[in-house]
């Protein structure tokens, strides 16, 4: 039985995995795991399926090669690319040690485009707030908080193992508010501050004034929200601004193992935080070469597979290192096979700053990266050396981390400076332009980024629509709905009492249709 960490959402739930490739894996609950008391959400329960994907092989131009050949070919090709045309991307299940080596390789090649999942957020917020993005607060503080604000986050769906902490807080007498386009199905909040999605998309600044009018909600609260590559910049900035004004403490949940990544990036390669964000990497024509580490672009990106493929095939060089085949694999010039996350030796840092040891034994991922570093800079480190750099960076000293303590802590808990106003060139990553909204659709599709669904292991095959929408389309239970803008999808629906008339919610990425937080769409009945 391997003691491992779930790589799903950054909470760092502990579990055991047992079995082998032949018999398949089985999950057993590890009740002693301090983050989750052994409990797991549906994603944690489905880790055997997550790990049961086709493994990546070492290849060069699609042909099988030895690891040695793949490594030296990758090095040769990477060296042949201009550093400014190269980007390093990892938004997946990599250990701290792997990320440290990855950063090392990136720097060795003189590349400044390093995206580990938070560049968009880093660029949105002033430097003084970065620490608050990088690291959260102890989850025990959530239970002890007297006031909680759920800011555009639905814990039961997005971060289920956070939900029980909020419930505990409530039991302890906390008042819970939620700020959202649509209230929580489970009625977890004592009060919901609703923003109107249509008004928001047309004039965000105007709609957000509603929040400033409710300072009582935010004053001295613990404000829980989320930062991922798709987080709406306007909302994120507003959240920090309100927190600054009201003396509130922000806690940002992050998908995958982004906390580890953010901490290491900030310490080891701070200059790259202003580099291209995930979306930009895939849109910016200047990027001609890409190194993907443990990242499935189809899972991480909201773009549809066709667009991703097109973009990847235009690249001059694509190097992929990972355990599993992805949409990138067959397009990659060089693929390097590493081990699955549960097999890895290494640590991760969870959202609250707990350093957790993953119980695997393999250091293959780090070794591959370090061999490439050697090819580039001449120096190569052992796993132990990389680990000690990681521990040093995290301020841990030499001893093995204790899972029961939160070891990496914020220096500041509150937001000090208010980010500049919304006019100051805020690029709403996730939001459509207002005009487009008014023209092209009569409904708004809200994509609720749910880490569990990014892996593609399972998905919800339906969207939620309002009672009014169902009435006006005269829908019957067995009907489907067609949702369209530039592209269209047909799928099942669920009627939700809570939804405002013109809002549709999807937790699954609807390829091509929901490429942003809010997308204007048309809704039709399909028999």
């Amino acid at each position, binding site marked *: 039985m391997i003691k491992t960490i779930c790589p799903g959402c950054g909470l760092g739930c502990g579990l055991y995995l047992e079995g082998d490739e032949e018999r398949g894996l089985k999950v057993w609950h590890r009740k002693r795991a301090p983050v989750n008391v052994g409990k797991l959400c549906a994603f944690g329960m489905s880790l055997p399926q997550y790990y049961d994907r086709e493994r990546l092989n070492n290849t060069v131009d699609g042909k099988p090669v030895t690891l040695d050949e793949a490594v030296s070919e990758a090095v040769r090709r990477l060296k042949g690319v201009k550093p400014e045309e190269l980007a390093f991307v990892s938004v997946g299940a990599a250990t701290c040690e792997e990320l440290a080596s990855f950063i090392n390789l990136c720097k060795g090649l003189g590349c400044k485009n390093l995206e580990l999942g938070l560049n968009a957020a880093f660029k949105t917020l002033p430097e003084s707030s970065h620490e608050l993005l990088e690291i959260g607060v102890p989850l025990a503080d959530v239970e002890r908080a007297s006031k909680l604000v759920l800011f555009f986050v639905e814990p039961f769906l997005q971060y289920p193992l956070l939900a029980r902490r909020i419930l505990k807080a409530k039991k302890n007498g906390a008042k819970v508010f939620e700020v959202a386009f649509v209230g929580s199905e489970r009625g977890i909040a004592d009060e919901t501050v609703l923003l109107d999605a249509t008004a928001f998309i047309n004039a965000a600044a105007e709609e957000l004034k509603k929040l400033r009018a409710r300072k009582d909600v935010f004053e001295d609260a613990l404000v829980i929200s989320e930062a991922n590559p798709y987080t709406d910049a306007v909302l994120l900035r507003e959240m920090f601004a309100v927190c600054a004004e009201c003396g509130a403490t922000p806690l940002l949940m992050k998908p995958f193992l982004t906390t580890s990544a953010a901490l290491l990036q900030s310490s080891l390669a701070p200059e790259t935080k202003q580099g291209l964000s995930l979306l930009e990497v895939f849109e910016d024509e200047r990027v001609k070469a890409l190194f993907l580490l443990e990242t499935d672009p189809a899972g991480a990106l909201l773009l549809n597979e066709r667009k991703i493929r097109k973009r990847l095939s235009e690249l001059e060089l694509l190097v992929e290192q990972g355990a599993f085949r992805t949409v990138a694999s067959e397009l990659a010039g060089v693929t390097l096979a590493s081990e699955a996350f549960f097999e890895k030796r290494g640590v991760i840092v969870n959202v609250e700053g707990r350093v957790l040891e993953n119980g695997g034994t393999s250091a293959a991922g780090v070794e591959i990266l370090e061999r490439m570093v050697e090819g580039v800079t001449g120096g190569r480190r052992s796993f132990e050396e990389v680990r000690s750099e990681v521990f040093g960076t995290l301020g841990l000293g030499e001893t093995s981390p204790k899972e029961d303590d939160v070891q990496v802590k914020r220096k500041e808990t509150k937001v000090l400076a208010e980010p500049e106003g919304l006019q100051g060139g805020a690029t709403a990553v996730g939001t459509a332009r207002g005009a487009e909204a008014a023209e092209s659709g009569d409904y708004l599709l809200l994509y609720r980024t749910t880490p569990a669904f990014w892996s593609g292991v399972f998905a919800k095959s339906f969207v939620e629509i309002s*009672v009014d929408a*169902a*009435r006006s389309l*005269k*829908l*019957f*239970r067995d009907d489907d709905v067609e949702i369209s803008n530039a592209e269209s999808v047909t799928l099942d629906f669920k*009627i939700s*009492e809570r939804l405002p008339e013109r809002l549709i919610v999807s937790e699954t990425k609807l390829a091509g249709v929901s490429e942003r937080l809010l997308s204007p769409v048309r809704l039709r009945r399909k028999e």
Partner: protein
Amino acid sequence: MLAVVDEQMNEKKEWEPKVLAFCCNWCSYAGADAAGLERRQTPPTIRVIRVMCSGRIDPAFVLMGFLEGADAVLITGCHIGDCHYVDANYKTRNRFEFLKEFVDELGLEPERLRLEWISASEGAIFADMVKEVTENVKKVGPSPFRKSWKK
């Protein structure tokens, strides 16, 4: 099980209970039919689902009926000894014991669940029973499971 979305299209002003009845093909359905043919006053509250035998009524169907918002659920079949599949209605009776306890523990009034054996010729009994159940349910009010928009 129950058409839901369409029903709220013609919202009624006053609440009328909805009674869901599972009837076996051979006896109780014929009984219900007879009640209709004989122009007995079967209240309009009834919704009948025909099954081949009461033994086919999975308790989960009954629970689904409640969750869909039925104000009462009736389980009906042939009299003990008359089941066309020999003794499948014993099954029904045993399951009913579970359902009865379940529904009570859950917090639904006992008036909302009923088991009745009805033969093909007992149209009158069927109609009276439905009437009685409807009256009883009216006293306890609408099902707490019914969503407001499903009126």
